[in-house]
């Protein structure tokens, strides 16, 4: 009798799925860490793991919500400021029995209302809380939407290359087709609509129905911030080609230049007026994991649906209800993020101070890292305009590429493994995100502490320049 569950009899889609962010490099780094080597994990956007402190106010509020008996204690004021106490009471009242009760499957109505108010303040257009679903992290929302859209392998999803590999993983898991469109590295990772049109035409000629387009703004891993003109063209494109736009906007707080502030796809859609504003279907994603909050471990996120019919929304609600509800503490973090302390609140000054310090430091680190990479031999790096990553291009010499082939590894994987073993810096090879044929990158985060950055960049430079020295073909080796 064959074993009940062996590798051969697994769902093929599961076997085909890849997610490099916690793949080979990360596993190797974890092994080395167990052996005692000091590892700097820059493989995932996980700010608190690299020393960023949580903002104080939200933690105070959630702690009080966890232990409501504190609210009755006369000494509570010794440990918590009055506005945190008031806010905890506010959120507890919005729940259906405290943090321990399943909420509405779409999330606590009162929190969704706060999200709607945030969106309205941000964009200048009202939105309906009923069309906002809170999720256990934005990733769950992305997966739910892709699962709803993809019927079979003839359904294609336009995905930027390079992309955050949640998209490729989810498309594979759900049996759809990834239709790549290439971002232009030489033009600061901008959109190339000719390329996009070619991609969609090519897919259609293969019998693929392209259903949706993913845009990550600010970009991951690429960090570019889209201009208003870009987004307008995107929306027009989706309108003409009949695509739903999936707008991953989780890094909207992480902006490190002043020329292109964040503008949501929804705002621009409504700015464009009829017929687009009523016709183009849009799903926008946000999270508490990024920004200056960095509360990855809470698993808090939401998606907002625009121009999806009530029947479709019902079906998505139905699927959400099978998982009962998103975690309630994460929902409260979301409420706090969209509704932070205001001027005049007791906690406002400290909150502002903490937030500003993080944002200023991230901006500095974006520069340190970009400049550091650009000072290395055979490395070219676009500036990190937004998000949390640096995605330098590593121009690998031919001999390095051959060595990788002999070792049975992708060239950037080999480079990253050697980098890891030499320096303890754990990155993700560019092949995990997609890149043009023959062009190699790695993704690192800009999250290591500011004071550690110079040493890290030096360590990288030392390794890289020695690597290039070793594999470049300059000294006397003749092929003639």
């Amino acid at each position, binding site marked *: 009798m064959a074993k009940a*569950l062996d590798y051969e009899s697994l769902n*093929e889609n599961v076997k085909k799925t890849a*997610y490099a962010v916690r793949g080979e490099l990360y596993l190797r780094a974890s092994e080395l860490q167990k052996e005692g080597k000091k590892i700097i994990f820059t493989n995932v956007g996980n700010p608190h793991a690299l020393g960023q402190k949580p903002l104080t106010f939200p933690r105070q509020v959630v702690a009080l919500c966890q232990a409501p008996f504190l609210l009755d204690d006369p000494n509570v004021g010794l440990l918590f400021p009055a506005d945190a106490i008031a806010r905890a009471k506010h959120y507890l009242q919005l729940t259906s029995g405290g943090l321990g*009760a399943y909420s509405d499957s779409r999330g606590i109505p009162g929190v969704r209302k706060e999200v709607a108010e945030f969106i309205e303040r941000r964009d200048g257009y009202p939105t309906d809380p009923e069309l906002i679903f809170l999720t256990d992290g934005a990733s769950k929302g992305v997966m739910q939407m892709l699962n*709803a859209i993809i019927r079979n392998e003839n359904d294609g999803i336009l995905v930027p290359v390079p992309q955050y590999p949640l998209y490729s993983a989810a498309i594979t898991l759900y049996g759809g087709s990834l239709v790549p469109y290439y971002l232009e590295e030489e033009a600061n990772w901008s959109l190339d609509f000719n390329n996009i049109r070619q991609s969609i035409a090519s897919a259609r000629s293969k019998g693929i129905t392209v259903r949706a387009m993913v845009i990550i703004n600010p970009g991951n891993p690429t960090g570019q911030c889209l201009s208003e003109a870009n987004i307008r063209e995107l929306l027009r494109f989706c309108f003409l080609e009949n695509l739903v736009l999936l707008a991953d906007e989780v890094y909207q707080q992480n902006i490190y230049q002043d020329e292109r502030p964040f503008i949501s796809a929804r705002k621009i859609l409504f700015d464009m007026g009829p017929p687009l504003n009523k016709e183009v279907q849009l799903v926008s994603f946000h999270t508490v994991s990024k920004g200056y909050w960095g509360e*990855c471990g*809470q698993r808090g996120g939401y998606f907002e649906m625009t121009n999806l*019919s009530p029947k479709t929304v019902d*079906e998505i609600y139905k699927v959400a209800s099978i998982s009962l509800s998103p975690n309630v*503490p994460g929902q409260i973090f979301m409420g706090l993020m969209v509704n932070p302390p205001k001027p005049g609140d007791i906690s406002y000054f400290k909150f502002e101070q903490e937030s500003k310090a993080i944002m200023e430091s991230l901006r500095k680190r974006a520069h340190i890292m970009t400049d550091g990479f650009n000072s290395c031999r055979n490395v070219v790096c676009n500036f990190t305009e937004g998000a949390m990553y640096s995605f330098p291009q590593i121009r690998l010499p031919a001999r390095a590429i051959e060595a990788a082939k002999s070792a049975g590894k992708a060239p950037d994987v080999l480079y990253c493994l050697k980098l890891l073993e030499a320096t303890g810096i754990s990155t993700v090879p560019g092949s995990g995100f997609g890149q043009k044929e023959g062009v190699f990158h790695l993704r690192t985060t800009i999250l290591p502490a500011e004071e550690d950055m110079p040493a890290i960049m030096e360590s990288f430079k030392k390794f890289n320049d020695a690597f290039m020295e070793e594999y470049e073909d300059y000294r006397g080796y003749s092929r003639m």
Partner: protein
Amino acid sequence: MGSDATAPVTVESINPKVLKCEYAVRGEIVTHAQRLQQQLQTNPGSLPFDEIIYCNIGNPQSLGQQPITFFREVLALSDHPALLEKPETSILFSSDSIARAQQILSSIPGKATGAYSHSQGIKGLRDAIAEGIAARDGFPANADDIFLTDGASPGVHNMMQLLLRSESDGILCPIPQYPLYSASIALHGGTLVPYYLDEATGWGLEISELKKQLEDARSKGITVRALVVINPGNPTGQVLAEENQKQIVEFCKNEGLVLLADEVYQENIYVDDKKFNSFKKIARSMGYGEEDLPLVSYQSISKGYYGECGKRGGYMEVTGFSSSVREQIYKVASVNLCSNISGQILASLVMNPPKLGDASYESYVAERDGILKSLARRAKALEDALNNLEGVTCNKAEGAMYLFPQVRLPEKAIEAAKEAKKAPDAFYALSLLESTGVVVVPGSGFGQVPGTYHFRCTILPQEDKIPAIISRLTAFHESFLNKYRD
């Protein structure tokens, strides 16, 4: 709204598996109840009752059950570790909760509870859970076998995704079942192979029935991949006898099935003559090890006496799989990075609660036993009340949180249901809601022998509400029968 006919995402063009799946626990009747609840707010006195009582869902803390103080102390300290540096904290928090929070924080790299953890969950917490499993079962458990998840449900979805390649793959599920299973199987494109629990023998699980359904499915070309057993049962509440469990283990081993053991109600046992035994314990006590039986055991923080549904915490313990299969399980878990840290911490507390000698032990035991004894009393009170109704029989709730009475509906009622285009038990449940404000889930949401009708009602309303619920239910049932008497 966009002209729906041509828009890219419409009900006509979404994934048909999404359209197919159903989940009655939060289905139509709940939506209706929410509407009535709104009506009560805007127009008080407009209905024959003044509150909606949600008995549709196992959500204890929404009906007044209090969380365990020690657990919440630890969580508050873990969420806001700055408290541990303040001297005032020792006035407001028990000494052992402070110690436990410190221990938990030191097992988290950088004490960063806001960071993504290892995709299986924080190692130190998995160690604590493994210890708890070993203490419970008397057989060792491995932290690397544990995957912490946002509730037990995502773990169920993961396994269904792994196991189901096409409609030709089947999963044996009990009827009646908790409809996560039917929904998940539909979502992942597989086939549900039903096996019927025997209402006449307290919802007994007969191996002969398992065999029959398995062979039937195989004759239709279905490859049956796994057997789902819910113990204690949901909605049925039965606790399996050890002998029965041994037969089930043998059956899975002989037929090459993965055993999916939903054990989320393991701490909800209300009878003295039955005890919870994990399937892992049973398998190991039979001498079966890793090589013999692929087994996935599910536990959750949502049930028991802790009832922490809103935290979304749970785990699956995966044993008996090859490393290449485990890598795939890990890989799928990693796409979502990790489960929420608060839920992970709670799972470790549930499996490793205060012990004799700890400062909080006595108050913890008092809280725990208070809740469990009250649940047992409520189970009995509701069961007796239901059995007193004409034409209603209700098996004992030996465990879990539900009663699943059978209602013999008169012909006229069944006809009226047909006219209203509703399943007869849905018609009954809706009438019950409209007369009494009590929300239950029709038996058709869980599956039942055709021609029989049930509903699932939780035992969770606070004890002081139970008499009123019983009298309203009794009055409603009498009038319903009188209305549709043959």
